[in-house]
């Protein structure tokens, strides 16, 4: 269960949201500039709100009134952005192992193997990030984020470089794995088909304010009709 009440500003942009995500898979849907990435960065602890609170399963991660700011890396929260941001001087395996410092060598190697297998990138282990395609890099970034066993996975349009079929197949595997490992996921997207493809709760975000939260079929009814109409016309 993820609860947050956040108020922050970036220049003229003002984000003010208060929500509780109970679903295993919640989609934050909104146009570019709605505040999706800002919200995910706040949840990840990379940025700090002017005021607010974030709690995951009852544990406060951010509580401005008490001056509490658990740093990223200690919040059991991972973030995968559109830009994979793989460390260019490390191999794929070393990238995935970066967050596994506390494990001994054997356990670390096994975990890296499991994660690469999950995202279908086992054969890429020895490669350098600069030798990967955009889609491969996004798979590796996902494996790296999952390796430290987070409780909360934040995905910021993470499959934009994957083609539809590959993206769907990975999504199915990922959702099963997250469910089995009791990891809550929050996915930001501006693509209504992505949001409608999963039986998820959807938070509708516009101009830094949340305008609706509920099942995708209800919240995105107008978007679904618009897509259906476009398909009919074409």
């Amino acid at each position, binding site marked *: 269960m993820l609860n947050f009440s956040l108020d922050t500003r970036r220049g003229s942009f003002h984000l003010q949201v208060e929500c509780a995500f109970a679903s295993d898979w919640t989609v934050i849907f909104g146009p570019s500039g709605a505040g999706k990435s800002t919200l995910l960065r706040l949840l990840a602890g*990379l940025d700090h709100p002017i005021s607010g609170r974030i709690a995951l399963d009852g544990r406060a991660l951010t509580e401005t009134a008490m001056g509490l700011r658990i740093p*990223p*890396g200690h919040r059991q*929260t991972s*973030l995968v952005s559109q*830009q994979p*941001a793989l460390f260019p*001087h490390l191999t794929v395996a070393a990238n995935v192992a970066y*967050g596994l410092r506390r494990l001994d060598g054997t356990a670390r190697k096994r975990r890296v193997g499991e994660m690469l297998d999950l995202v279908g990138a086992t054969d890429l282990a020895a490669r350098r990030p600069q030798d990967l395609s955009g889609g491969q890099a996004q798979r590796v970034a996902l494996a790296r984020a999952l390796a430290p066993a987070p409780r909360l996975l934040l995905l910021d349009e993470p499959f934009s470089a994957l083609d539809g079929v590959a993206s769907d197949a990975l999504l199915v595997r990922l959702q099963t794995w997250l469910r089995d490992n009791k990891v809550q996921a929050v996915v930001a997207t501006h693509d209504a088909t992505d949001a409608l493809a999963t039986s998820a709760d959807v938070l509708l975000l516009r101009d830094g304010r949340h305008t609706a939260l509920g099942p995708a079929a209800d919240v995105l009814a107008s978007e679904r009709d618009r897509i259906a109409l476009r398909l009919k016309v074409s």
Partner: protein
Amino acid sequence: MDLQAFALSLRLAAVTTAILLIISVPLAALIALGRGRWLAAVEALTTLPMVLPPTVLGFFLLVLLGPRTAFGRGIAALLGHPLAFSFDGLVVGSVIYSLPFAVTPLVAGFSSVDTALVDAARLLGAGPVRLVSSILIPLARRSLLAAIVLSFLHTIGEFGVVLMLGGDIPGATRTLSIVLYDQVESFDYAAADHTALLLLGLSVLALALIYSKTRNHGVGRA
């Protein structure tokens, strides 16, 4: 050639460069990645020795480290000798004087590392020390090389601070630059030629090393 002065210059440059590395890497990381307006003051203070006339800096240090101030008397009591007109005093002066030449390339190098990589490392649990050692230094290794070489060369070539703070004591504070000055003052131009050529050769060699590394490793990294 004054081998004693040559050895002293190399020792002074090596000790100064080692101390500067220890100070500059965390300081540059703080300036490059930190937030807060007070960092502008830190950066300005770090850069100050670059624009301050060396003789002025040497004079300030001479007064500060001499018996006129409580600080200077305290240091003298602690070490058993005053810092002014000693090798240790030269090291202190050189570290301050060459600080911007170590910090500036490192700040530039660390700042050029993609912030998304820094965020990714932090999300994976990297604290400041690991962030610097496993991400910033490997990705800005040529900036680190530049900082080492520039600090070393700048210390080898310094004159004003050395003369003001250390004087001209053979074996203790007489460096190659002071020897060159003495040789010119005594019209021994032949010897001055050799000393100047040696200083020039060192500089060219070190700069060639930096630029060869830059060319060999292509572009895209600081």
